[in-house]
């Protein structure tokens, strides 16, 4: 049986390498066609880090035949069975939604009842990122040591160490993995850096027993000063760009990359209200445009917030139980956390020491030759991708202030069109058409009596 080795893309995407019998499978997996769900080929990884302790939870959105699923991920230390956990896919999905860029809307009041903006606000979030619901003697001769071998959930897992890449490659091939030729050099580099290899396949029986339709995320706990994500294996055979979402949960503050520049996505911009219906497209185009301005790649911070609250909330903050299941290991176990109806905006009274940073990385082998290295900073400033739409009052307006109000709204709509075009690269013509189809501009009523400055002077007219 040949295994299809999926380079870590989404599923385990980040440092993983999938073995393929035919190279074309890779291309199909990685090439992003223009305008089609770019982010679908994205990896999602949550990293919980405090000191040298790390838990990595990797989403698995692999959708092919389970028996063909196989991954190889470099890890800094040997991993034993009790360091591996199969997690609930809903948790990563929740985290994804909680940290997603958000659209908020405000409704203007009737200007004739005194202008009141910001009376009502609703929150929309960007579409969730398609998170999935959700032989030892021979080895020794090849210089490959099977350090650990165990089954967790639906996964059969091996932890390998190797003396040289040829032996590792031979062993993987003998055991049904086909490693891309170009990966050998990268494997060799990891071996010399004393990395181990986490190799996982699906155990079909265990999967049948578990009754899960989808492959669940794998969480791995380990202790190492290396605060990094291996991306090099995943770029070996990939063509074009890959997207990765990294959700960093720390006790400190914002996490940034140390060997690449971390920048922020544009935020707090007013855009035309029709975008509500295509916010997913807006987000993709906006991200794409921001990345293009930086050469097509980059590390972008999309969210950074204290996990106790949010404003506005795209999803409720996660409960202590959820965080712990995800891998946040420093929460006080004694604390009770009874789920309560969550306010949409206000902070929750309890306080937990968890700060989340969402990094969106778009990379390819050329622009990101080195693995991602991170550091936790003391920066606890909150940041979010937030976009604002303001609905004009469209009821009857009978007063002098109405004309001014309409002028303001028309000017505002022009500004919004320009902002949107600038953020997304969409053409102004198309945007204008959609704005006109959606709400239109106010037409100014010329028949209304014009008040000249002198009309009040002598009471003429």
């Amino acid at each position, binding site marked *: 049986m040949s295994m299809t080795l999926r380079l870590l893309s989404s599923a385990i995407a980040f440092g993983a390498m999938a073995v393929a019998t035919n190279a074309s499978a890779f291309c199909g997996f990685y090439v992003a066609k223009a305008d089609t769900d770019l982010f679908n080929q994205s990896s999602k990884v949550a990293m919980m880090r405090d000191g040298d302790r790390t838990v990595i939870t990797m989403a698995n959105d692999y959708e092919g035949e389970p028996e063909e699923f196989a991954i190889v991920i470099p890890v800094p230390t040997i991993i034993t069975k009790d360091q591996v956990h199969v997690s609930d896919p809903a948790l990563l999905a929740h985290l994804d939604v909680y940290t997603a860029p958000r659209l908020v809307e405000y409704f203007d009041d009737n200007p004739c009842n005194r202008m009141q903006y910001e009376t009502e606000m609703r929150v929309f979030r960007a579409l969730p990122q398609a998170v999935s619901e959700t032989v030892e003697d021979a080895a020794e001769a090849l210089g490959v040591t099977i350090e650990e071998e165990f089954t967790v959930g639906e996964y059969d897992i091996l932890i390998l160490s190797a003396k040289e890449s040829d032996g590792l490659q031979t062993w993987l091939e003998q055991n049904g993995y086909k490693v891309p030729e170009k990966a050998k050099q990268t494997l*060799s*580099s990891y071996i*010399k850096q004393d990395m181990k290899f986490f190799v996982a396949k699906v155990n079909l029986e265990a999967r049948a027993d578990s009754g899960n339709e989808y492959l669940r995320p794998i969480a791995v706990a380990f202790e190492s000063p*290396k605060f990094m994500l291996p991306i090099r294996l995943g770029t070996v055979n990939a063509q074009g760009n890959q997207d990765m979402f990294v959700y960093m949960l720390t006790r400190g503050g914002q996490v940034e990359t140390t060997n690449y*520049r971390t920048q922020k996505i544009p935020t707090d911009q007013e855009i035309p209200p029709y975008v509500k219906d295509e916010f997913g497209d807006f987000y993709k185009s906006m991200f794409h445009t921001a990345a293009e301005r930086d050469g097509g790649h980059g590390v972008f911070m999309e969210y950074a917030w204290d996990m106790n609250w949010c404003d506005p909330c795209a999803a409720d903050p996660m409960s202590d139980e959820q965080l712990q299941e995800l891998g946040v290991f420093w929460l006080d176990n004694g604390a009770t956390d009874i789920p309560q109806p969550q306010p949409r905006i206000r902070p929750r009274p309890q306080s937990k020491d968890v700060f989340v940073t969402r990094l969106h990385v778009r990379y390819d082998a050329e622009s990101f*030759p080195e693995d991602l290295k991170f550091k936790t900073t*003391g920066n606890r400033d909150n940041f979010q991708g937030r976009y604002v739409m303001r609905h004009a009052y469209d009821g009857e307006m009978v007063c002098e202030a109405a004309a001014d109000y309409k002028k303001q709204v028309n000017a505002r709509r022009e500004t919004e069109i320009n902002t949107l075009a600038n953020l997304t690269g969409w053409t102004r013509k198309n945007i204008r058409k959609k704005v006109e189809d959606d709400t239109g501009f106010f037409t100014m009523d010329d028949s209304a009596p014009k008040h000249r400055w002198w009309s009040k002077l002598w009471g003429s007219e």
Partner: protein
Amino acid sequence: MKSVSGIFGRNGLRALLRDPRHYQISVLSSLILIGLFAYSFRLPWWHVVGCVGATLVTQALADRFIAKRPFDPRSPLISALSLTLLLRTGSVSLSILAGVLAVGSKYILRWRGKHIFNPANFGLVIVSLIFGAAWISPGQWGAAPVLAVLLLGLGGIVTGKAKRWDVSLALLGSYAVLLFARALWLGDPLAIPLHQLQSGALLIFAFFMISDPKTTPDARVGRVLFAALVATVGFSIQFGLHNSAGIILALILCAPLVPLIDHLFRDTRYAWPQFSPSHTPSPSQGVTHVHDLTPAE
């Protein structure tokens, strides 16, 4: 031009341009402006004011009460600008503290008439090690400002503004050798060491921090040795201990060895060019190496 000469004396303008600190002050200020406007550094203006103010006040007080000599704002200004470029913090008091520590260290931690630690390096490391709310962001520079730093740094060497260019080049050279050697050993593509060399923090460190003439060894051999040592220690911290600020930590660790290196390789001590508007320096006075050991910084 004539009027300028009138103010500064015939050779005054040349003397003004000769002092390497003036070049450094202009370059560091430009880098801060580039960072602020082109790369949206998180740098509130009051942090800059706090840090500059702290270094100037500390220097003024120390000059008056400890060193008993006229106040000179240039060196503390350079320390403050370096700190502003490399230290990130959300707290203005930490910016101020870093400035006080930087300049204070020059008057307190001394050995045979020479201060031991690079002032900005001292303030930067101590504050970022002790306080979680201050940190160093090696990744804050993209590729474009790296080019700017490189050009300005090399520009300083070419125009003779950098008096300790040997340290800068020896450091970058040794570090590059180590990075390429590592890549060759690992079998990594050379894109990786090239990428690692394109670090804005590394270049700023090489051209504008370790090159401080007052804290580097007096003799050229000593300086090259010192730079190689800092590069090796920094490399080890970066790749052995996985701390991205390795090179910056390496300087504070290696600085106490400078007196020993000076003992082994003797040479004249550096002094800043003396310049006064009322006094036209003769060419011989413009020479930057003098023998008397004034506490001038």
